């Protein structure tokens, strides 16, 4: 009887631990509140394969992979936030010229991707139409968008979901500053 009571209590305590764990995870994913009806924050993308170095780079993205610091924006025609980001790229420009940047468009068919690029006049930026998001999924485990991928010497050092290009640009400096000592150690 004593043991049965103890075991029941232990199961309940275990359930509380699981509840707090999942609640904590949920709270960390909610992020900052929306501003003007649009989320303008950033949050780390948990599932991205940090530290990975893609085995091959599409020609349009090779400048990002070859640079000491490069930024790749993963967008998708079917996601509402990506359309907002695309509008912002069209009206306000890209995230600065300090480091190479390119677009990866995860699209359901190349035509859909091309239509997205044309609709928002994104031809001016280096871009790669990734059918079904195959490249970014197999190489980096990224299946979300919009996502900013930060590369240092071709290696993925950070991945953040974002709602605003300026917020991502502001984050880039601190991300690459943090990555600097690790890169020096690797060298």
């Amino acid at each position: 009887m004593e043991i049965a009571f103890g075991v029941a209590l232990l199961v309940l305590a275990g359930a509380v631990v699981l509840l707090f764990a999942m609640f904590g995870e949920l709270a960390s994913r909610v992020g900052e509140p929306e501003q003007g009806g649009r989320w303008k924050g950033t949050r780390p993308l948990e599932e991205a394969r940090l530290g990975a170095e893609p085995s091959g780079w599409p020609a349009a993205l090779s400048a990002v992979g070859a640079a000491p610091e490069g930024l790749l924006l993963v967008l998708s025609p079917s996601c509402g936030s990506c359309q907002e980001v695309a509008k912002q790229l069209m009206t306000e420009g890209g995230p600065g010229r300090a480091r190479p940047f390119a677009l990866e468009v995860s699209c359901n068919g190349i035509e859909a991707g091309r239509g997205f690029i044309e609709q928002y006049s994104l031809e001016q930026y280096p871009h790669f139409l990734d059918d079904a998001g195959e490249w970014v999924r197999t190489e980096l485990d990224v299946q979300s968008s919009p996502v900013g991928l930060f590369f240092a010497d071709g290696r993925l050092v950070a991945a953040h979901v974002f709602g605003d290009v300026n917020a991502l640009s502001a984050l880039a400096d601190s991300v690459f500053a943090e990555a600097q000592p690790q890169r020096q150690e690797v060298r």
Partner: protein
Amino acid sequence: MADNAFVAVNSGAVAVLLQAGLYKFAVPAPLGRALIELAPRMSNVNVNGLARGVAAVEVLTGLALLAPATHVSGASATVVLGVLFAVLGVVGRLRRSAAPCGCLGGAGSRALGLVNVAVGLVLALFGVFAATVPYADTPYRLGPVLAALFLLLLCLWMSRGLALQLLRRKASTAQVGSG
């Protein structure tokens, strides 16, 4: 008296292992990131699956410590886990690991380092001692109750930030509601 103290300490070790294991099982990503930070080559490995595997071993070890029939096996596994935690802590410290590992669940801001070394060594030493104690002769029936209480206290302590945040939000919502 000494037997009671041993059962209490044993329950404390169970609580630590269950807290660490259950939290990691639900949220494996922090440990996965910390492992990749230590060894970038692991980016090609399913680190979340690996973290869940470690979590399952922690939970089973904790449960094994509670029953007289499996106590010695549990104690041996505790030694192995303790040494593993300590080694990871040393490597994390040497490589100046910065990614929170979520090793003991909750707070999550601590990277692999000296705390892991300390917890690992305490667990390993306890495991060595526990393996020599005839657990069936102790008031082991108290174990599950004590472990549950310690687990609740540990969980609340490790998640205190989140708990306070929820309480504050509730209080402010109540104020808005009454205003």
